[in-house]
């Protein structure tokens, strides 16, 4: 089984996180769970990756953190997307479409093993 190279996916962690934050505010663990589910268990974001992505995006003004409470009353840091974050997400989406198109030109799948 092939693994995703972390170099390639690094540029798109933000996109994945924002994808969920645009739907609703969330907290770190929930985001990591959703990423796993949504990618059909093919990508598991590392905790440190997620944390540094969140810190960076907060610094850049793409997300805002605020205190919320878990069901059991424990304090938890929640994140919500800002307008700047939405705009950034759109840009990343367009960038990906172009990237995908370009890389596609150079990809040749072996015909056996598929279908």
């Amino acid at each position, binding site marked *: 089984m092939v693994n995703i190279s972390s170099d390639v996916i690094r540029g798109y962690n933000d996109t994945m996180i924002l994808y969920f934050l645009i739907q609703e505010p969330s907290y*770190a*663990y929930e985001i*990591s*769970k959703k990423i796993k589910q949504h990618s059909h268990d093919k990508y*598991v974001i*590392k*905790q*440190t*990756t997620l*944390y*540094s992505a969140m*810190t*960076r995006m907060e*610094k850049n003004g793409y997300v805002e*953190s*605020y*205190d919320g*409470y878990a069901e059991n009353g424990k304090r*938890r*840091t929640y994140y919500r997307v800002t307008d700047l974050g939405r705009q950034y997400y759109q840009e990343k989406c367009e960038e990906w479409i172009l990237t995908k198109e370009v890389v596609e030109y150079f990809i040749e799948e072996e015909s056996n093993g598929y279908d």
Partner: protein
Amino acid sequence: MDTIRNYLETTFNSFPQSQAVEDVKAEMLEMMEEKFQELRKEGKPEHEAIAIVISEFGNMDELKETLGIKDDGQINYYDEAEIDHFMSASIRGTYMIALGVTLIIMSFIFPILFNENTTGPAMMFVFWAIGVGLFVVSGIDKPDMSNGAAQLSDEVRRKLTDERNEYKNTEAVVLASGIMLCVLSFIPTILFDTDWAPAIFMFIVAVGVGLIIISGAKKRAYDELFKKNVKKKKSSYKNPSVKKIMSLYWTTVTCLYISYSFITFEWHRSWIIWPIAAVINALIRAIFTEGEDE
């Protein structure tokens, strides 16, 4: 769970001791605990759950960048110029806020003095505009020191603490004068039974409040410096409906004030809504907020 805790302790061992590092560690632990509990609930045996949690932890190098730690494990320190710049910008910002608040409180003098015509309200709005303008620009050139890109060295920390202690007396005097002015502000209203007595009251309160805010200028700057990297925890309303209602509180009060004043043209009296609104706000806050983090 102990295994996970020990794992974190060991991984963070090579990191310098600081508040920022502690914060990250706490955050990491929280996430790991949650993941662990959920895996257990799904029926995974303990050792397997621990293995999964640890395997999904990641790479410490990624945290180094976030914490401002260089590759060789050394910490990035702010230099003195950066700190000076921050301090002066922060203090200047507080002065602007103090001036803004003072001007806004003083603005109510005009409707009291020019009771009969529109000059009063007009002047009041001009002062509001200047005050709000000051609020807006107050934070403009203050550098962001809370992103954790660098830290304070122990030496700088000591120096700043000394400076801070030296300033404490001055601060107390300014604060006390401010409070005294506010407490004594009603005296003219009692002594002179005239229409403009409330104007003197406003003036004294405005100066008093200005002094109170100014007295905290240095403290605010220092606190922000020292507590950098610590997440700002604002006390917030726990109850979502209270939170929604309160987010509109001051807007509503302003609307009430303006509409009432324009309809009745009782500008010299309607300002009383502000102190009342402030008291009500304080009450609601006291009842509905959770304890604040220091």
